[in-house]
């Protein structure tokens, strides 16, 4: 069978296993997304954009089983006062969630935006995803727009007194969840959104984010610890003048994770920071794929990705900065680094710059390294045992990424989780 046919057959098989929600104001958007998927076909092994990550289990018609991770530990972010919006296997659970009313923000289910006639959400749904299909195709995101079962529309009009926490509970070992959120941060508004949990055995998540002029959004997520879970996530963000968008992702465990971020800086003086820290042991494959477009003057973007890999774990980074013509005074920074704790693990990186303006500063770097033996001996000579010393150096390696978390208490909470993960593996 020719390659194109293989792809088409696989795509058709996956689509046949899904049901497109009919009716409602999103029908047009969903149908348009479906035809995008049909035209593009789902990702295949030969696709350049999937060179380092095998997409088959993400695109297969059948979900692979993932055992639910049992732990006595406190849930992530439990120490913070927050508004919880809980999804169980990809379905909103009003009983487990907090009251969704909070000053400065309106939260609605995607299913309710038609009935409530929420214009901004209708107008955003699928739009940034569609824009993000160019110049690189992201078929799993289009699939999401078409078939999403649930999700929320978050409208930030003020400065809510506490973070909104999207909690993704995984309870069924054969669950296959597709969630789609739309977020709009109005001018002068500011919010922190926390996300945590594995969500399902297989999770396809899409988040479309519209930050108006001077709006600020801080996004901190912790992807769940279930070893066998798989996730393909996309965030599409559009940034207005003087707006700020900062995103940090913590990933511990997970057999397969592909996190894509597609960011467009469309207003002057906007700032986008996309960061991630991941730690993987053994059967772990983590892929960060980032595409940042500078299309305005004097914008700043930072990509900081750190990966700690051991026992044959794999890390992937594909990061691009595209500076369009006229996007002068762009300040673009990109760093991707891995710390390999043994010879079996690997890190594959593809950093890219494409610049069409002349007055810009862009730097990128990618490194792969081991624990610094000199530093290790120095610590041990002061009495710090090898295990603890290695952990200290590992946390130091991750620090630059964790430092991207604006709130020091949330950052400390993340460091504590990393410490726990490392010390359990000493």
């Amino acid at each position: 069978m020719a390659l194109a046919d293989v792809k088409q057959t696989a795509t058709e098989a996956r689509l046949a296993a899904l049901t497109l929600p009919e009716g409602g104001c999103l029908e047009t958007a969903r149908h348009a997304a479906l035809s995008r998927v049909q035209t593009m076909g789902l990702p295949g092994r030969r696709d350049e954009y999937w060179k380092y990550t095998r997409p088959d289990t993400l695109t297969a018609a059948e979900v692979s089983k993932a055992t639910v991770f049992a732990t006595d530990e406190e849930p992530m972010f439990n120490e913070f006062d927050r508004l919880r919006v809980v999804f169980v296997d990809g379905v909103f659970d009003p009983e487990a969630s907090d009251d969704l009313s909070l000053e400065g923000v309106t939260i609605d289910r995607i299913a309710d935006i038609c009935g409530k006639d929420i214009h901004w959400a209708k107008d955003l749904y699928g739009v940034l995803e569609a824009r993000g299909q160019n110049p690189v195709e992201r078929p799993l995101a289009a699939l999401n727009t078409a078939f999403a079962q649930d999700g929320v529309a978050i409208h930030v009009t003020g400065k809510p007194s506490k973070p909104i926490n999207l909690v993704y509970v995984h309870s069924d070992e054969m669950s296959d969840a597709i969630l789609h959120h739309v977020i709009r941060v109005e001018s002068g508004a500011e919010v922190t959104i926390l996300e945590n949990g594995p969500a399902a055995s297989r999770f396809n998540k899409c988040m479309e984010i519209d930050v108006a002029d001077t709006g600020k959004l801080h996004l901190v997520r912790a992807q769940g610890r279930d070893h066998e879970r798989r996730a393909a996530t996309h965030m599409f963000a559009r940034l207005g003048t003087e707006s700020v968008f900062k995103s940090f992702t913590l990933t511990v465990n997970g057999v397969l994770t592909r996190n894509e971020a597609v960011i467009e800086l469309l207003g002057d003086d906007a700032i986008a920071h996309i960061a991630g820290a991941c730690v993987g042991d053994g059967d772990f494959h983590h892929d960060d794929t980032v595409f940042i477009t500078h299309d305005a003057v004097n914008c700043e973007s930072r990509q900081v990705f750190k990966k700690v890999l051991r026992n044959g774990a794999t890390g992937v980074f594909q990061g691009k900065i595209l500076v369009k013509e006229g996007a002068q005074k762009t300040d673009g920074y990109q760093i991707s680094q891995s710390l390999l704790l043994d010879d079996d693990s690997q890190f594959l990186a593809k950093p890219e710059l494409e610049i069409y303006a002349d007055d810009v500063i862009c730097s990128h770097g990618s490194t792969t390294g081991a624990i610094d033996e000199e530093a290790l001996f120095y610590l041990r000579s002061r009495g710090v045992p090898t295990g603890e010393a290695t952990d200290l150096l590992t946390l130091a390696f991750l620090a630059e990424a964790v430092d991207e978390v604006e709130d020091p208490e949330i950052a400390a909470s993340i460091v504590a989780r990393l410490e726990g993960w490392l010390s359990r593996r000493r």
Partner: protein
Amino acid sequence: MLEIKNLHVKLEDEDKQILKGLDLKVEAGKVHAIMGPNGSGKSTLSYVLSGRDGYEVTEGSATLDGEDLLELDPEERAALGVFLAFQYPVEIPGVGNMTFLRTAVNSQRKARGEEEMSAAEFLKMVRAKAKELKIDADMLKRPVNVGFSGGEKKRNEILQMAMLEPKMCILDETDSGLDVDAMKLVADGVNALRDEGRGFLVITHYQRLLDHIKPDVVHILANGRIVKTGGPELALEVENNGYAGILAEVA
């Protein structure tokens, strides 16, 4: 306290003998100085005593209060009381100096079965010691040795020594790269720690430091062995005539 007998050390990866039958005994309460030309094996001795990889002891022994040091991991030696002030202190980006010090102090306490130092107690002690060494709050907050000047790094070594209160202090060219004021600070730091129960091995290239830290015994190390031992006057002889005379005399 520290007893080294007939120590032979070669590089692990190379067929190169560096220490060739070194004998040395440092008694508690005493300051011994080791002087010697570049490449004579002074740093190698300090590294072998503190347990760095890359060296192979082919013969001889080194004990601290009768305990065989060479059998132990670096952290175990540290807990026993061995401290090396590095000739080239290591930079550790991402690890705060305070975190580093507190982890070190408490690791040693834990290893000795002692109670860990409370945060308040630790802070009080570190502030007092830092002040004596003119180490400001900023230096304590910064990552270990990152962006420190040569003198700051050496003072930071002495701060660690003061916090860890080791039994056996080995200082490897702590005077190199120091101006007169910094040298005085470092020497004062060392002198403040002089105690009946503590031994010092001060490795230096120049006699300068020994004006401030008065040694009880001076050894000349050349070509992997102690070739001459004497009193403080031996350091002066080196200062005035260089090593040539002494080496010719023992050859």
